[in-house]
């Protein structure tokens, strides 16, 4: 059975047995070539489910709308790390989530109505093809365990501060503050985001470079040590802002300083959620 057939069969079984109320997976989008999220409540509808290299959405975000309800989720390795993040941060209960993990071949670059064969940059850099945790696995687990690398971040670090500032000024000038990045991000679930907070006011309502700068950098810092690298923010950005460069820079720093990567398990406390007296960072000294 291929991945799609395995997912369909599993979803059908889970719904028929009443193990879960809903299976969140993917179906074909209206352009005929891309995928879109699908919520399956009836076993008869499980046949719509698909899985291929266009299934780039991180469905873990939707678990936040189904708190306390038994839900199965089709999850790639990065999506599984998002599930772990949400469990770790007490947003989702492990026993309410049934993870249909998928061994991931990497997702490809797509546009509306067009699918390329080129891997997405995040997928090209990704070294995790088997989910770190699952209840049911689709595909054969590999045993690769290569070191995480940050060639994209290294290229940015090679630039001078002035060059980096100019680069981001240019990028942020396009931001329309549509908040697609936030809305797609599994780590962005504050009931009131600082961007909407009026008292105190963190960032004004203007859709302008200065506010966009504050918005994008503050969001990145709120995800420091929490971003699981699914790159949804960049995927959904209608203005093609390379947000992964911000997130991956902070991911790299967190890894170097604390040896921590978010979502690898659901138990290890996040570095910025803990304080240890013996912790001594060799920064700013």
């Amino acid at each position, binding site marked *: 059975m291929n991945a799609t057939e395995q997912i369909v069969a599993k979803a059908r079984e889970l719904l028929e047995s009443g193990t879960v109320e809903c299976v969140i997976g993917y179906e074909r*989008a*209206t*352009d005929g070539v*891309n995928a*879109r*999220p*699908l*919520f399956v409540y009836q076993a008869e509808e499980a046949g719509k489910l698909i899985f291929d290299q266009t299934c780039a*959405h991180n469905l873990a*975000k*939707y678990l936040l*709308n189904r708190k306390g309800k038994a839900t199965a989720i089709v999850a790639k390795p990065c999506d599984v790390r998002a599930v772990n993040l949400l469990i770790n941060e007490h947003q989702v209960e492990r026993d309410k989530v049934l993870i249909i993990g998928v061994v991931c071949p990497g997702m490809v670059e797509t546009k*509306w*109505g067009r699918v390329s064969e080129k891997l997405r940059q995040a997928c090209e850099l990704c070294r995790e093809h088997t989910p770190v945790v699952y209840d049911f696995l689709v595909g054969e687990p590999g045993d690769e365990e290569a070191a995480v690398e940050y060639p994209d971040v290294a290229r940015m670090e090679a630039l001078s501060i002035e060059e980096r500032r100019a680069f981001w000024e240019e990028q942020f000038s*396009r931001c*329309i*503050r*549509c*908040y*697609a990045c*936030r*809305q*797609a991000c599994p780590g962005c679930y504050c009931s*009131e*985001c600082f961007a*909407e907070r009026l008292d105190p006011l963190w960032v*004004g*309502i*203007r*859709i*302008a470079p200065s506010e966009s700068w504050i918005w994008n950098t503050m969001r990145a810092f709120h995800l420091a040590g929490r971003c699981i690298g699914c790159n949804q923010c960049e*995927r*959904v950005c*209608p*203005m*093609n802002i390379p947000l992964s460069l911000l997130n991956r820079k902070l991911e790299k720093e967190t890894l170097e300083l604390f040896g921590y990567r978010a979502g690898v398990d659901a138990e290890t406390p996040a570095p910025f959620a803990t304080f240890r007296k013996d912790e001594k960072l060799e920064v700013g000294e």
Partner: protein
Amino acid sequence: MSDYISRADLLSWLEKVSQSRDLVAPVKIEDLTLFQKVERVEDIVFDPGNTDLSPKEFFFPKSEVLFYVDRSDGRVELVPAEVEQETVIFGIRPCDAKGIAVLDLPYLEEPADALYRQHREKTTLVGLSCVSACPECFCTSMGTTPDDASNVDIMLTEVEEGFIVQVVTEKGKALLPEGLLSSKEVSPPAAPSVASVPSEGIAEKMHQVFDSPYWDRLADRCLHCNVCSYVCPTCYCFDVRDLRSGGRVERVRSWESCQSPGFTKIAGGYDPRAAKGPRLRQRFAHKLLYFVEKFGVTHCVGCGRCVRSCPVNIDIREVIQDVQGLGVKSEA
């Protein structure tokens, strides 16, 4: 015989236009095509297809100052913003031009929005008819056509080596210098065939299916970002706040979306439209029902931008199709 201008003459005319006015046209910014103030006319993109953002921002900017508070000399005065700059928007497609005509309905309705009216008065629209249709477009189902010249001041249609020119309004006529156009024996290409959606009677159907569980199911996958509203040529919701900028107080208006959290939340915390289903339904009910009831036209021009840009493929064409089918099914 048609009025005609060669491509070379067109570009040199646009060059002249850009010396006395802001010339706005589609240009490439990295992988995006956006309406922007043109620095060099050679940068203008003539390719078929819609820009990533609509040109509505030149009438209803993403953010604009409504007035500022002048506190000099120990007294307080409110100084309203005024639009001074004359602008020419070149290369606007018939759907986007129709979008501006649709924006006129709420904004020019009395009491008219002062800044919008000024932007409108100071701007001349030079349209470019569509000789090919994009797969996500459905303009002919939304009251316009690929060659609709009724909402622009001048309409161009691309033919070999140049363009057929239709001067539609006095404002358009005033923009064109004498003797710029020649007469040529050339006929416009046949208008492309545009995919249709079953929009007939959609307001009535929206009314019937308003309380259908369909909206909750559709909203399951909606992320409630503002992409659809912000790429849309007709969405016009806004937010207003005061801002302290450079030592003075400005009242600023910015784009806002009915999908954003807190859009309907009143001070004190009560939010009558907090649930996902009603929130998403609001967008379609406004476009396909309320606006139709109030102004007689859909609040959608079929440009296809939201279809293309939605991160989770909430496709208004499919919604219209589904709604038309639901009316029947919900009886069962």
